[in-house]
Structures are given as structure tokens and as C-alpha cells.
């Protein structure tokens, strides 16, 4: 299998087709930014992008990523070493408390903004409805995703 992760191509033995993507990212590639919160595809802490679509890495197997491009939180970068504008917006809006849901939340928000640069607050709330956060009540997370939209215009 050929799986590209954050721009790096990994050749993976076919015997591992049915291995879980989340475990592979965390244990084999040491990409521990992707979190395990429930392991049943509910909480969204493990959301990564597969060909720019948000997917739950705990519910995906390696064969589902074969020939595709996986983007994790570690792969999200701004220009010239700066934070990605969406990451910066999470910092600036005080969206982060314990931080455990944040990688999945940012990846889901990123996928939304790639599709729709200027979603309404309701659109944002719908998009992150399956990313659970227990700290923030979501308000400042919605603020950050809303504010970051214009950066996607510039990059488009």
C-alpha cells in the first residue's frame, strides 16, 4: 500500500491492510496529535483528512487510505513557519482549554473552510456537531472557525 501522510509517502506491507489508521498514525509514525477519545467514532478527537475529507481515524483501516493523502494536525502549516491561520484563530479566540478535542476540531473546521470559506455560525455548529468538547461550550471554537474563513479566500 502507498499512503501519503502530511506529504511524506509511506510504503506499507499489504499484511497490514486491516490495521486501524489511528493506531498506525500514533504508534508507527509517532503522530500523536491525533487523539483517541472513544474509539467508536463518536467523539471526533481522531478526525484526520483523507483527500481533504474529514474522517475518523479510529474507524478507518489502512486499506481505506491506500493511494490517498492523509493530513493530520501535524501537517497543517502556515506560511514561513507561522501557524496555519485556523490554528492561529484558535489561539487568538481563546478556543483552547484542555486541548484534547482541538486537533480533531481543527481538522473538521479546516475541511469545512476548504469547502465553504464563509460558513454561517449555524453551518459551523453543524459541521462540528460530531466533535465533542467538554470544556468550552463550543462558543469560542465557533468564533475561531468563523474568523479564519477570510484566510482561505487569500489562499484560494
Amino acid at each position: 500500500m502507498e499512503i501519503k501522510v502530511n506529504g511524506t509517502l509511506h510504503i506499507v506491507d499489504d499484511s497490514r491492510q486491516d490495521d486501524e489508521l489511528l493506531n498506525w498514525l500514533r504508534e508507527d509514525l509517532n503522530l500523536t496529535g491525533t487523539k483517541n477519545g472513544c474509539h467508536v467514532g463518536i467523539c471526533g478527537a481522531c478526525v484526520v483528512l483523507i483527500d481533504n475529507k474529514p474522517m475518523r481515524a479510529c474507524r478507518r483501516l489502512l486499506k481505506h487510505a491506500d493511494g490517498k493523502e492523509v493530513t493530520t494536525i501535524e501537517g497543517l502549516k502556515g506560511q514561513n513557519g507561522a501557524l496555519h491561520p485556523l490554528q492561529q484563530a484558535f489561539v487568538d479566540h481563546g478556543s483552547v482549554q484542555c486541548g484534547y478535542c482541538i486537533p480533531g476540531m481543527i481538522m473538521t473546521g479546516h475541511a469545512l473552510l476548504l469547502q465553504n470559506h464563509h460558513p454561517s455560525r449555524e453551518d459551523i455548529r453543524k459541521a462540528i456537531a460530531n466533535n465533542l468538547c467538554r470544556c468550552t461550550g463550543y462558543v469560542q471554537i465557533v468564533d475561531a472557525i468563523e474568523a479564519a474563513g477570510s484566510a482561505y479566500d487569500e489562499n484560494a
Partner: protein
Amino acid sequence: MAETKTKAWRNDAIAKVTGRAKYADDYKFYGMLHVVPVYTDAVSAEIRAIHTEEAEKMPGIVRIVTAKDVPGNPHYGQIQKDYRILADDRIRMNGDVIALVIGETRAQALEAAKYVRADLSPLPAIFDPEEAAKEGAFLIHPDKGTNIINHHKVRTGDAEEAFKHCDIILDEFFATQHQEHAYIEPESSVADPGDDGVIRIYGSMQHPFVARRFSACVLGEPLSNIDVLTIPVGGGFGGKDDTAAIVAARAALCARLTDRPCKLTYDREWSMKESYKRHPYKIYYKMGLTKDGKIQACHVTVYADGGAYCSVTPWVTFRSTAQCCGPYVVPNVHCDIYGVHTNNVFTGAFRGFGSPQINYVVEQMVEKAAEALGMDEIEFRRLNCVKQGSTTVTLQKLDNHTVSLEQVLSTTIEKIGYYEKRKNNTYGKLNENGEYYGIGLAMSYRGMSLGAEGPDFCAAIINAQFDGSIIIETGIHENGQGSESAMIITAAEYLGVNRDRIRYHRSSTSTIPDSGTTVASRGTIMGTSAVVLAATKLKAQMSQCLAPALECNPEEIVFANDCLTAPNGKSLTWDQAVLKMFFLREHPFAQDTFRVRDGIDCSWDEETGHGKAYFTWVYGCQAAEIAINPKTGKIRLINAAATHDVGKAVNPPFVIGQINGGMAQGFGYGTMEDLGIKDGKIANLNLGKYKIPKANELPDFIVTLVENYDPMSKSGAKGIGEPALELMAPAVANAIAHATGKRYQKLPMIIPPEK
């Protein structure tokens, strides 16, 4: 909201948005083993034997640990030492662990765990705390001779006599449910046995000191042999006090027995099966009123389900006792609150800590009382609530800080437009949208920190380096709330330096004096107070040393804008000042401790329930607007507002963040969260069935901060974590009553669909 327009800052935000922040399960050590707990299907049973032989032969299994392998004392607890690190004599709840399987890989340990078997003889079981409190009930812990963990009382005035002279008496029953903390990160700890004999623990917890105490107890070793380090925690909400200590102690036990690093990471089902919850309460509440609208007497009886182990039940129920009449002046009070063992999952600390249950009841009782008297519900509250100089039901005079209850009430009413909107309350008649609509509010006061519950003191260290940079640390733990940033901001303010100079040293239990647990909304008030004391001490030391150079008296030196300045105009930059200190052979280093003085600031009489329960108080009010679809019964939260007096908002975006999060948790508690526990077994063991509020189920919140500087706090700041949670369920309950015309006196409030 104006407050969030300025850019937020916290010291760990960048690591957390880039995925660099390392939580416990993200740690790996060379040669690390993986530990898996083994449960039984039982709820109450005698353990005759545990068979591990078969599992031991499985591939990759290094060792299987049972209670008999524990080198120290297998029993521990913060109050009563009844918790078993591994079940020895009995299964007392479904989440009891009988063995730990240690494998080279997690997969191998998981596989072998299936082959550990226990011979069990079933025992009777009891699940209702009121039944369990009765004489002759089946005993969960026979050695205690009773299932009653504690009995707190308030005996103020003469309630029985007062009821005889009341015009109206309300007598009601309420029940509340278990609530799961549902931190998104399940428990995890890694223990690494060092070459110096010290086991270092990297774990997800909010009370590293109890993790150290528990580990030392189980190992039979001194506290100095265990070092618990601070790493990011994926949410706690009170839930990573006891349970996290258990997980840490088990990892430490396995590390000591194998001499290898051991990781114990819980999956969600284990976490929900085993970890303690919020106490379910059965509450009998009688309130007596006179026609003039005054509350004359309250008779309160509560059975709190403590579950199989004591944990902090006596402390949780202490708060319910001290606050048993909510923020109202009641001259005659007879209150009995029992913490009781059952075979349910044990219960312990959870954000709110005994107040959400009481507020849910009291804030509905006052509305029932107003209704019975034909009074406006807000006017009734104003007439009866505590004011500056009022005396609480435990005979504490509220005169050492600003009593701002009416201020937060008025602000919330104004911000949400309560008086205008309540005209639209439907009281059981569908409105033009085909929905029921209601607006409701609730208010509270809350004693800050631990109060008379126990010794309350906190250390801070400030250590300036010769290049002008500064390292600080405190005994408060970063649980995600932003405590480290609050300490940095406070230190910068009091030292008169730019905060960029300051790094927060992630304390370990070996570097900072034991300052207790980071619960009880005590982080900001205790931690920033300690920082202010240490900063004051450091400035005094530096002033003493540098006064000759500045040619002035030490007390005349002003610390501001990264400079030390004398009245004569002479000054040293901060960099010059600290360097000069080093040349003078003086370390610019200060440690100090903020103490709540026993008997002076806080006091308590167990027999009468009289005393200064808490050294200062906070005041809050929240309102909720809801609509109910009659066909589904679904409660839609349209809008919600909160006003809280926090003394001083040290880092406003995160004070607001605490309030937003607390309101969401309180809404979940009120309307959806339910373990589905039956005969001691939890049905809803993952976040699919155990519902917590989602982003599309909540509105934006209207948050207002009130800042009445509190002289009891050295920084003026108080706390916000728990006040933020404790009001949403009663506010929604009142909104439901105004929408449907019916009172829902059981949590969670589920509205049956209409046929």
C-alpha cells in the same frame, strides 16, 4: 462580546493547536510495558479465588498482578481507606478490578485479560441509598458496621416550632442522577522506574499529590520515592482526582514489580464503568413561609448515593449542607445529609461538588413558594436572598467581601430581557410556532475553595535568573482551565515585568510543596494569592539588597515597566537588578504560602452545623430560554445568559471560556446525561449512548463578568469553574415549568412526547 475581541493568550495554546502537546498516552519509553485491567460481571460478590495461570502463559505476558502481589497497603482513600487498588475480599461494584495484566504490547495484554477468571460467590446487593441507610441493611463494608459514610447536620433556630407558625408549607421530593465527567481524554498514566530509585509518573490527573500518596501507600514506600510530573490533561472537571490516582498507582505498582516503564491507558468503556461520578441525591425538602413573603423554616433530608467506596463523599455532602438553603436567609433550619454506600459505581468530586443538586431543588422551591404566595418570582428572591452583612444558615456573617447577588441577578435579567420575554411563557398552551416556550433563571452563592472541609493552603515559588528571565511555579495543577497562564499574568503584574520574561515551570510533586488538589474552584484564588505573596517577598528581598545602589530606602523602590525606580529618579532595569543580585551573592528567589487560617477564616461545628463554612463567597445568576417541541419532547436551548462575580478576571477570555463550558455541562446535566444504570450496571458505557451536549444543540451564550475585588484574596480574584456549572439545570427547570406549566423534579428532565 467585547471581552473576546482582544487576542487571547495562554502559555500552552500553540502546543495544543499544533498537536505537539503531549498527553499521557503520547509518552513512550524504551522497554515500556502495557497494562490492562480485568473486570468481572459481578456487582456484589465474595472473591474465592482468582485464576491467572492460563493468562500468564499467553504470548508476551510479563506478569499478572492481583491484590496479593501488592507490597504495601492495598487499601487507600483520601478520607476513609476503603478503596482497593485491586479487589481482595469482595466485588463491591461492577467496575472493581481484580487483576492487572502486563504485556509487551497492549494487544497481547488485552488478549490475555480474557483468560483471567475469578471464582465468585454472589452476595446480596443494594442500590438505593435511602434503603441502604436503614438499620439491618446489607452491609457493603461489614467492618464499618453501617452503610452510612457520613451524616452532616445544620441545627439553626427551631424549625419544627417555626413550621407551626407558617401560613404556607411546601413539602416536595426531588431526585438527581449520576453524571459522568466525560472528559474527552480517558485516564492514562505512565510510570517510569528511575535509576535513582524514584518512580516518575506522567499521568492525566488534577491532583498529583494524591496520586503520589496513593502510589506510596500501595508500594509501601516513602512519598519521596514517587515523583508525579505535570503534563497536559485532557479535561478533569473533578473526575481526575481519585480515579486518576488509582490509575497512576496501578501503573507505579506494575513498574515497581517489573522494573520497567509501564503504561496504563483506559479505553472509554473502562473509564465509564470504573470512574466515580457525580452523586445522585434523593432530596426531601420542606419549606415554611409566612404571608409577608418570608421564608421562615426549611427541613431538608438528603440521601446521597456514595456508591461502593467513600472517596470524597463527606466533603461533597459538606458543601450541600453548608449551602442547603441556597443563597437565602432562613432563620430556622433542620438539615440532615447522609452519604451512603450502595453497590452502585462510586461517586466523588465533580465540578459543582454537592451544589448542583441543591441548587436544582432550591431554585425550584423558591419559585413554587412565590407561586403559592402569589408573588413575583424575582421579587420573592430579592426579599429573601443574602445581602451585605446577612447571616447564612450556618450563622456566618457575610461582611468580609462584596455580597453581589442582587447585582448579578439584575444584570442577568437585563442582559437576557427577562421581564419582556417572560410575557411569552406558554404555561402549557402551544404558541403560534406550535411549541412551548419558557424563560427561567437561577441564582446561587458559593463558598470558595475547600472552606472548613480541610486544610487549605498553597505554595508558590518565584526564581529569577541572572539573565532577567523568571521561572515560577505553584501547587496548582493545569487541568486545561489555564491556571499556568493566570499565574504568569499575576506574577508579571505584581513584579512589574513583561510576562514574556516568565516561564511557568511544570511542577512535579518533588519540586513544589504539597498544596492539595486542584478542585473546588480554588486554583485561581489560592494560586494567584500565593504568587502575590511570593512576589511581595521577592520584591522586599531585592529592595533590601539594591536600596544602597539606588540610594533610597528599600520600601521606596517601585517595581514597574521592567524597572526598579527610586524616588530620586535613579533606576535599574530588571535585567541589571537581577544581575546585581547575583554579584551580591543573593539569589532572587522567593517561596511563600497562602494559608486559609483554621478557626479564624473558617470554622465548623459538626453537631450544630454552625461556623464560617467558607472564607469568602462568589455570586452568580444564569438564565435560559427554551422551546419544547410537543411531538418529540425535545428541549431546544434558544438562548442563555450568565453573570458571575469573579472578584477580578485575571485572564478574561478564559474566564468566559470557563463560563461557556460550565453552562454547556449544566445543560447536559439538566436535560440529557444519564448512565442508564440498573442494578449496579451501567448501560451507557460510551459517548454514543451517554449523550453530552453537541455544538448544534447549544446557542451562543451571553456572558457578563462582574469584578468586585475581594480583599480575602491576595490578588482580588476568586474562582469560576464550578459556579459556571451549578445554575443551568435549575434555570432550565424553571424555564420548563414556565413553558409547560409542570414541574420536573427528577434529573435529567425528559419531556414525554405528546400523542
